[in-house]
């Protein structure tokens, strides 16, 4: 007991000088006394945010596969310990990493918020189903909490400049659509989804502007033909997915993107999993190279 009190006192004294950083997270006010050094993140978008600052997380919920983080982000940080799947992260491994902060996703991890808080101060932000704007807001909060507010604001400003430059160069009035395809079906990403938000940021028109409520919209081939994108980008999870069945149908050739040969198969890890500033800029590059 004495040891515990002594440690607490020491901790209090040694960190008293550093500023206490506060942000509003999805659960209310989050404040942290120290600058966190050992951070565990439970969604890919937070990896992007940390990597922008050059901070390496000690643990990532990467679904047991480190390659789900795109190389551009992975190369910026040192290797981490996998803490399991994003939907059911392994609490035992998280606690064994002895983190001093955890960044969790509101939608996936609200159920284990109390457990996470017992392990370390937990910042809970939007990640799953977040929009492009939500992501930038979350990134700014992460900057404050890591005591790197100024640097993060600067990074965001630079990101905005680069996106503006892309927007100027791209300048197209065509209709764009990104969709992911798995064995279970094809899902369109509306302007509310991250990829859709990036397109909107670049001043591109969505092929499904009427979808303002839902980020992800499951689609049939008929619906896809009706949306009729001029540029269709599909991220495939696997070799043979639902979109390959679409291709066998004569309807497929009626999509103007297919007719104009502007159909593109992209990396779903980049376009859907790794949301963040780094990913957004690579997405912008890909869009720039595909647009004729």
């Amino acid at each position, binding site marked *: 007991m004495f040891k515990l009190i002594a440690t607490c006192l020491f901790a209090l004294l040694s960190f008293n000088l550093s500023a206490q950083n506060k942000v509003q997270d999805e659960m209310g006010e989050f404040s942290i006394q120290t600058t966190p050094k050992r951070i565990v993140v439970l969604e890919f978008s937070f990896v992007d945010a940390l990597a922008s600052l050059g901070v390496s997380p000690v643990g990532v919920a990467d679904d047991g596969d480190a390659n789900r983080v795109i190389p551009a982000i992975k190369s910026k940080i040192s290797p981490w310990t996998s803490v*399991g*799947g994003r*939907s*059911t992260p392994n609490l035992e491994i998280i606690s*064994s990493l002895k983190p001093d902060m955890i960044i969790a996703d509101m939608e996936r991890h609200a159920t284990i918020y109390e457990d996470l808080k017992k392990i370390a101060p937990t910042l809970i932000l939007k990640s799953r189903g977040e929009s492009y704007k939500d992501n930038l807001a979350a990134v700014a909060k992460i900057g404050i909490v890591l005591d790197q507010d100024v640097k993060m604001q600067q990074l965001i400003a630079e990101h905005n400049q680069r996106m503006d430059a892309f927007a100027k160069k791209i300048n197209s009035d065509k209709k764009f659509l990104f969709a992911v395809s798995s064995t279970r079906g094809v899902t369109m990403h509306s302007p509310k989804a991250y990829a859709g938000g990036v397109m909107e940021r670049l001043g591109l028109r969505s092929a499904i502007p009427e979808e303002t409520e839902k980020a992800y919209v499951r689609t049939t081939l008929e619906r896809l033909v009706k949306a009729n994108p001029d540029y269709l980008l599909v991220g495939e999870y696997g070799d043979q997915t639902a979109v390959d069945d679409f291709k066998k149908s004569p309807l497929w050739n009626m999509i103007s993107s297919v007719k104009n040969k502007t159909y593109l198969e992209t990396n779903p890890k980049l376009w859907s999993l790794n949301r963040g500033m780094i990913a957004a800029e690579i997405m912008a590059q890909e869009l720039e190279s595909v647009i004729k």
Partner: protein
Amino acid sequence: MRVRPAFVFISLIVLLLCFSVWHIGAGAIDIAPLDVFKALHSSDSEHNFIVNNFRLPRLLISGLVGAALAISGLLIQGVIRNPLASPDVLGVTSGASLAVITLAVFWPNAPISYIPPAALLGGFGATALLLFLARHLLQRPAAFALVGIALAATFGAAIDYLLTVNPLEINTAMLWLTGSVWGRNWNHLPLIAPWLAVLMPLAMLLAYRLDLLALGDDTATSLGTGVKKLRLLCIVVAISLASAAVSVCGSIGFVGLVSPHLVRSLLGHRHLLLIPATALTGAILVISADLFARILMPPIELPAGILTAFIGAPYFIFLLCRYKNW
């Protein structure tokens, strides 16, 4: 293969203890058996945090949920007098699942803590509906069970509909549906423990009458049993236990079906012995399922609900092939 009851009980308890120690010791972080005891005793142990915050509550919840589902299955098989009956068949599980998914779809911002009461309500709602629809069929157990099956199918269809229309809003609900002990902690213990503490003794009180019921409705009546009342009471007790279990862990299938059969093959038909033995078996089954869910492919956690079938089904098939007296 009748065995001396004392031998059965001692074996079950030893098995339960072995699995419990293994459950606490194994996982993404391995703890040697001796360190497990150390971690339980002293707060200095480095494993104390993991054991006390994650593994111990999971162990207890798995055990209690398994016991509740198993007793529920035993009672339902007893009163319906059909070896295929179990809480899932009567629509309790799908009713509870439907309630949780409805909550997730129509009130997406509802606090997470609303899920267990919603499930409980759904389970009881399904039961009330079943008892109302089949109120004249209480004397005809097979017909009664069929109404339950029809209800379960209807709820299942409604669940599939909601899942198809709103595939992404219901992440939490989906996770809950597969029957998982992941993320359960001490706060979830009061959701199941009191039910079992009250209803298991009540079931034991009914044991003697259940034995009479096994002789057939007419014999039971002539021996002074109020068959209709007994049947109703047993169904309510069984369904309450199942609803409570489902409200904590989601639907963990197969436990309520296989445990009673296993125990019957060892102990015969005396419910006073069957009830505690089934409870132990159910506890062992769910504890081992949660154990394998954690250690099969760490750090990924599998839902225990998948594993109960994997563990239970082969054994069940073996039993069915070996003993032809059902």
